[in-house]
C-alpha cells in the first residue's frame, strides 16, 4: 500500500467515523428534542379543555359532519314532564318540610296533644283513630313513609330503595358531614374560600309574561327588530354568545316534556304550569370548569366557577336578545332552571349523553356546565350529532367504576331504559346526591365528569385517540384505549373518595398547589387521610 492510498483510506475511515458518530449524536439529540416537545405538548395551556385555555375558536369541531338523522331521544313510552319529588334536589325541600312538621308533631305528643290537624304534608288522623297513632320515639329519625302525602307517598312505595337512601342521607350522612366539616375545616380552608367566592345569584321573581319582557329592573323591551333571516339570527346569536364567554352554543326548539311540571320561577302558583307561548326556541350554552382545579374533584374543586360563568354569559345573552325586542328568559345554575338541560344540549347538537347522564361534547368532553335562554326569536336550529359516544359508553364504564356511590348504571346499554317515556342513560340521582352530602371542600362530586375519557386534554395524543376512536366502527380502538386509560393512569379506587374511616376524601388527581393550605396559611390542618381505617 502506498503512502498516498493509506492516507486516503485513513481519511475515508475518519470521515466514516465522523458520520457514524455524528449520526448517533443526532439520534440522541433527536430523542431529546422529541422528549422536550412531548413535555411542551403536554403542558401547553392551549390544549386544556378548561376555561380560558381554548382561545377564540372555542367551538372548534365542525358539527355539520357529525349530524345524525332522527330525534334527539327515542320515545319508548308515554312521555311526561318531571314532577317535583322526582328530582333529588327538589325532594330535599319536601323532606325538610316534612321533617320539621314531624318534629313539631313529636313535640306536640310530648306536650300531651293527642291529634294534629292541617299541618301541610302531615296527614291528619282520621276521626276516632287518633289514639292509634303512636308517637315516634326518636326525634332524629326520618319520618315514616306513610307520613308523606301524595304523590310522594305513592312514589316512595314504588321506589322503597329511594326512601331508604333519603333516610340514610338525613339520619346518617348529614350529621356525619357536619362533624367532618368541623374536623377538617382548616384543611379545606382555601377550597372553601375559592368555591364560595364564585357565588352570584340574581333570582327571577316575576312570571315569564312579565320578567321575560323587561330589561333589568323595569325597562320594557321594544318592538322586535327584524333579522334578514333565521340563519342570520342564529349566526349573530352564536357569535355574540361566544363573545359573552360561552365556549359552546347550540340552538333548538322547545320540547314541553323537558320542562319541570312544577315551580315556574316568578309564578305565584308553584304547581303544574303551561309552557309560556313565547318560549319557542332554546339557546344552549356550555362553559368548562377551570382546568387546574377540575382534576382534583371531588373535594379540592368546585362547580361554582363554571356555574357562575355560564350564568353570567346567559344573563348577558338574555339582555342582548331583549334589547333587540324579543322576550327572553335565562335558565342557569345560579339563577335556577325551568327546564331540564341535558336533552336540550343533545337536541341542540352540542354533544351526546354519556353513561354518567352528562352531555359529552367533542370539544371539552363532559367538563362543562350549561345555561339556556328561552325566547321567541326565530333562529335556524342545530341538529343532534353522533360522534360515537353512545357506543363508546357501552363498553367503557370508567365513570361507573370510580363512582363512590355506585349511582351510575353498569348495564351493557340503555336499550331497556325508559325514563318518563324516553330512552336514555339515567343515574340514581338520590344516591349521587347522598355522596354530594358527604363530600367536603367545594361540595358536590364531579368525578364522573373528569374521569370521562372524553374530558382529557385536547393535545395531539388525546385528539388522535378521539379521532381514531370515532373512525373505528368495530370498537377495537375504543376498547384498547379504554384498557390503556384504566391501566396507564393512576386514579384512586371508588372507596378512596369516601369520608374517613372507610375512605380518605381522595381526589381524582392532586390538587393545585394554590389550594394547599400548607403552602400559604399559618394554620394546623388535619388531612383526612390520617383518619382512614387501616
Amino acid at each position, binding site marked *: 500500500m502506498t503512502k498516498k492510498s493509506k492516507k486516503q483510506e485513513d481519511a475515508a475511515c475518519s470521515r466514516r467515523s465522523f458520520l457514524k458518530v455524528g449520526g448517533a449524536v443526532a439520534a440522541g439529540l*433527536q430523542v431529546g428534542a422529541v422528549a422536550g416537545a*412531548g*413535555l411542551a405538548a403536554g403542558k401547553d395551556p392551549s*390544549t386544556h379543555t378548561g376555561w380560558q385555555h381554548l382561545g377564540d375558536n372555542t367551538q372548534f369541531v365542525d358539527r355539520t359532519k357529525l349530524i345524525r338523522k332522527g330525534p334527539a331521544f327515542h320515545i319508548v313510552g308515554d312521555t311526561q314532564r318531571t314532577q317535583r319529588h322526582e328530582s333529588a334536589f327538589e325532594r330535599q325541600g319536601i323532606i325538610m318540610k316534612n321533617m320539621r312538621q314531624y318534629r313539631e308533631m313529636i313535640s306536640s305528643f310530648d306536650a300531651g296533644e293527642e291529634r294534629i290537624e292541617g299541618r301541610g304534608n302531615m296527614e291528619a288522623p282520621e276521626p276516632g283513630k287518633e289514639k292509634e297513632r303512636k308517637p315516634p320515639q326518636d326525634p332524629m329519625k326520618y319520618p315514616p313513609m306513610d307520613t308523606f302525602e301524595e304523590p310522594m307517598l305513592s312514589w316512595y312505595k314504588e321506589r322503597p330503595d329511594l326512601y331508604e337512601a333519603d333516610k340514610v342521607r338525613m339520619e346518617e350522612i348529614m350529621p356525619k358531614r357536619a362533624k367532618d366539616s368541623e374536623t377538617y375545616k382548616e384543611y379545606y380552608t382555601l377550597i372553601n374560600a375559592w368555591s364560595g367566592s364564585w357565588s352570584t345569584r340574581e333570582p327571577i321573581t316575576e312570571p315569564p309574561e312579565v320578567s321575560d319582557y323587561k330589561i333589568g329592573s323595569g325597562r320594557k323591551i321594544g318592538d322586535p327588530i327584524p333579522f334578514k333571516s333565521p340563519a342570520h339570527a342564529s349566526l349573530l346569536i352564536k357569535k355574540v354568545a361566544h363573545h359573552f364567554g360561552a365556549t359552546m352554543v347550540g340552538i333548538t326548539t322547545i320540547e314541553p316534556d323537558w320542562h319541570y311540571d312544577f315551580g315556574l320561577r316568578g309564578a305565584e302558583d308553584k304547581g303544574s304550569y303551561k309552557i309560556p307561548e313565547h318560549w319557542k326556541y332554546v339557546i344552549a350554552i356550555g362553559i368548562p370548569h377551570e382546568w387546574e382545579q377540575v382534576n382534583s374533584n371531588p373535594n379540592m374543586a368546585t362547580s361554582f366557577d363554571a356555574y357562575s360563568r355560564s350564568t353570567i354569559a346567559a344573563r348577558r345573552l338574555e339582555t342582548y336578545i331583549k334589547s333587540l325586542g324579543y322576550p327572553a328568559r335565562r335558565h342557569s345554575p345560579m339563577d335556577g332552571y325551568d327546564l331540564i338541560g341535558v336533552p336540550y344540549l343533545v337536541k341542540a347538537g352540542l354533544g351526546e349523553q354519556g353513561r354518567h347522564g352528562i352531555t359529552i361534547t367533542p370539544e371539552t368532553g363532559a367538563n362543562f356546565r350549561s345555561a339556556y335562554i328561552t325566547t321567541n326569536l326565530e333562529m335556524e336550529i342545530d341538529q343532534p350529532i353522533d360522534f360515537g359516544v353512545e357506543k363508546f359508553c357501552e363498553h367503557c364504564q370508567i365513570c361507573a367504576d370510580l363512582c363512590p356511590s355506585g349511582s351510575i348504571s353498569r348495564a351493557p346499554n340503555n336499550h331497556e331504559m325508559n325514563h318518563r317515556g324516553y330512552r336514555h342513560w339515567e343515574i340514581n340521582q338520590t344516591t349521587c346526591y347522598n355522596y354530594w352530602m358527604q363530600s367536603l371542600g367545594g361540595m358536590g362530586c364531579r368525578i364522573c365528569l373528569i374521569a370521562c375519557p372524553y374530558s382529557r386534554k385536547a393535545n395531539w395524543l388525546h385528539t388522535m385517540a378521539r379521532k381514531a376512536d370515532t373512525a373505528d366502527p368495530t370498537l377495537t380502538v375504543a376498547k384498547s384505549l379504554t384498557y390503556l386509560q384504566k391501566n*396507564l393512569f393512576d386514579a384512586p379506587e371508588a372507596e378512596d373518595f369516601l369520608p374517613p374511616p372507610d375512605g380518605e376524601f381522595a381526589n381524582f388527581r392532586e390538587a393545585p398547589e394554590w389550594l394547599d393550605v400548607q403552602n400559604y396559611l399559618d394554620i394546623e390542618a388535619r388531612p383526612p387521610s390520617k383518619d382512614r381505617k387501616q
Partner: protein
Amino acid sequence: MITNLVIFAFIVGLLTGAVVVGAITWAKDLGLRMTWWKCLLAAIWYLLFLFLFFAAFTFMGEGEPIAGWRTLGISTVILVILGAGLVRILRSK
C-alpha cells in the same frame, strides 16, 4: 408560536438528515445488505421509537407522570423485542 415550530422543525430536519447519513454509514461498515424494504422496516422502528417517546413525555407534561413512566416502560419492552427481530432481518442475506 409558529416561529418556534418552524425553528423546531428545521432543527429536527437537520438531525434527521444526520441520522439517515449516519445510519447508512453504520450499515455499510457492519456489512448489512440493505434493500428498500429493510430500510423501510428500520425507519418504521425508529419512528415508532420516537413516537412512543413523544407520547410518554406528553403524558409527563400534562401532569400524568405515572402514565408517562408506564408508557416508557412498556415501550421499551416492545421496542427491544421489535428491535431484536429487526436486527435478525437486517442481518439476513
